[in-house]
């Protein structure tokens, strides 16, 4: 096995040189094309891509060069043996014909010091991802190839041409969520396309500032940490819920207080809440009296990391202060962030809720004391992760007045 790659490479070069000398258009494909473009070295498989009409001539010249043709039952390729090494001559990869244009798009590269046309990276990924199917969908093999070739690929083109394949979609989603590849432009991204709200859901790349989605951020979306307005609010009356209480429930009252304190209005606050690479948390006014985003840029901030004295857990976490999270993060981090957010947001304020992100959907399980808090779970998650479907499976701890009955409590005897 040690010598297998060397043997493979020798055969690869022999076939390439023979086809070149016969002026038969071809391109190196398969895992060796990936290797040529920086991917892992394969241990079997030498694949060449040819137009179907050129295959008979290719087989003839290769046979003349001493290789042994085999006529396989498959109708999309033929094979030649170079000694022990099997070389595939593929004319219909994943059911699509190899075209002149495809071969012309390929680039001349040096492969183990022999120059030859190598399949273009975008074409290569279209084929590779379309080849994934139910019995062959090991992303552990695909992801290193994406890592190796990502800069050479037009990913939007790959998304378009593989849109019909759920396996390709899954691979691209994982790669996008791992920030290996940039997210799709606008609605084209597979992950966002089927979200309920549709539209411009701000899933963005690593270095792209998030665009605010005003529709997804109601007026209550203000009050994120790091805004100067929050710093001002954090002054004398930090007990938002208590101080502003009275008319119309603490949530509404506090929301009004936040709105008053911020003349720039909800839209701008929504934008500020979502700007920047760092996550924006709904807390920490005392620690962030300074200019906007200071706290947010600092990266992860635990809920309640800095709180205003004697009152609400920070004006920023005051009722109605939805915070939006860094949507480019891996699901498990987002789940942790949401868990903290649900504890920190006074509308829910429940530490024991379990958050699971799966298939773009946010599942929240657990118990809260009131129906209002149960409903607020959906609100808080929707504000933090706009565009994600929310499955709220939270139940109520107290089941009505019957529950409060002390009539028939059993007694345990402690010896």
């Amino acid at each position: 096995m040690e010598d297998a790659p060397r043997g493979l490479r020798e055969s690869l070069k022999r076939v390439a040189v023979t086809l070149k000398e016969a002026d038969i258009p071809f391109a190196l494909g398969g895992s060796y094309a990936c290797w040529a473009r920086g991917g892992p070295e394969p241990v079997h498989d030498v694949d060449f891509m040819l137009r179907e009409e050129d295959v008979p001539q290719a087989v003839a010249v290769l046979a003349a060069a001493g290789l042994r043709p085999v006529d396989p039952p498959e109708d999309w390729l033929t094979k030649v043996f170079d000694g022990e090494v099997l070389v595939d001559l593929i004319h219909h990869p994943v059911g699509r014909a190899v075209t002149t244009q495809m071969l012309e798009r390929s680039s001349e590269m040096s492969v183990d010091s022999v120059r030859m046309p190598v399949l273009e990276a975008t074409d290569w990924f279209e084929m590779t991802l379309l080849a994934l199917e139910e019995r062959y969908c090991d992303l552990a093999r695909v992801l290193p190839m994406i890592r190796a070739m990502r800069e050479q690929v037009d990913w939007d083109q790959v998304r378009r041409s593989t849109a019909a394949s759920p396996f390709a979609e899954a691979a691209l989603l994982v790669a996008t969520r791992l920030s290996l590849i940039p997210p799709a432009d606008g609605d084209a991204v597979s992950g966002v396309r089927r979200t309920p709200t549709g539209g411009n859901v701000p899933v963005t790349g690593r270095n792209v500032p998030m665009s605010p989605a005003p529709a997804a951020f109601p007026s209550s979306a203000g009050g994120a940490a790091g805004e100067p307005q929050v710093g001002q609010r954090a002054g004398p009356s930090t007990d938002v819920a208590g101080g502003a209480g009275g008319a119309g429930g603490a949530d509404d009252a506090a929301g009004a207080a936040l709105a008053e304190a911020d003349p720039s209005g909800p839209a701008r606050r929504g934008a500020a809440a979502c700007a920047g690479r760092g996550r924006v948390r709904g807390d920490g006014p005392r620690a962030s009296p300074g200019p906007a985003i200071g706290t947010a840029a600092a990266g992860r901030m635990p809920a309640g990391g800095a709180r205003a004295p004697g009152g609400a857990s920070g004006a920023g976490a005051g009722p109605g202060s939805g915070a939006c999270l860094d949507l480019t993060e891996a699901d498990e981090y987002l789940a942790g962030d949401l868990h903290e957010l649900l504890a920190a947001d006074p509308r829910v304020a429940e530490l024991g809720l379990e958050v699971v992100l799966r298939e773009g959907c946010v599942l929240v399980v657990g118990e809260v004391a009131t129906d209002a808090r149960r409903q607020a779970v959906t609100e808080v998650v929707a504000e933090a992760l706009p565009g994600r479907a929310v499955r709220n499976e939270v139940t109520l701890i107290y089941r009505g007045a019957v529950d409060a009955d002390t009539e028939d409590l059993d007694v345990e005897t402690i010896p």
Partner: protein
Amino acid sequence: MTHGVPAPVHLRTPPGPTIRVAAVGDIHLGVDSGGGFAPVARGLAGRADVLLLAGDLTQHGLVAEARVVGEEVADAEIPILAVLGNHDYHGDAEGEITEILADAGVTVLEGDGAVLDIGGVRLGVAGVKGFGGGFAGASGSDFGEPLMKAFVRHTKDLSADLQFALEGLDCDIRVALTHYAPVPETLIGERAEIYPFLGSYHLAEAVDAGGADLALHGHAHAGSERGSTAGGVPVRNVARPVIGKPCALYEIRVPTTVDRESAGSAGEWRSAALVAPTAT
């Protein structure tokens, strides 16, 4: 631990006088929870001698929430003692919350105790919030970074406070009241990974050393109700979601001299009795 003989050994001694303790933790009242707990507090008259609240009385540690708690317990006819929980500290208003509860007639314990005379029986309750740190084999150490030391020292300090408070009680029945758990047994149901955030064995050490007859805690909403310390003291997790009822009721008999003398084997008979609790 299974016992072949279900009959509790303590039946051999003549039963002493008893008191009845009502306890619940983690009621997590919010500003929207008015009216939910008042019937419980009121309804305990004649059914229990005292109500112990094991922390997390508020949802977010807000003063406004503490006022709701105060209003909900204002009509109670039995004495109420409480410790605060981590939620009650979240708003950095624990001092004010303590005052509001005190104004409503609740004795808030933190490193101290109180003795109530209940029909001639002196019930002593010592309370601390407690803290995390973990349990044997998976616990934090007073070692390394200042924050880590501070974390573990907070637990140790509060545990020492609890022991001191227990020892200071001149009473017939001694109850330790905490928010955090002293033993892992009453955490069963929670994910093992978070045990170190749910309690500390230092609290159990204090419970044992302080000679408590019962330890009550909350905090672990998904935990289990019953456990006991290494020294055999019964531990009950009275977190509202755990007990599944408005509050738990425990009847505690005044330990006799015989009980005290047999304290060496206390673990055995106490556990045996708890395997098959006798209803009254």
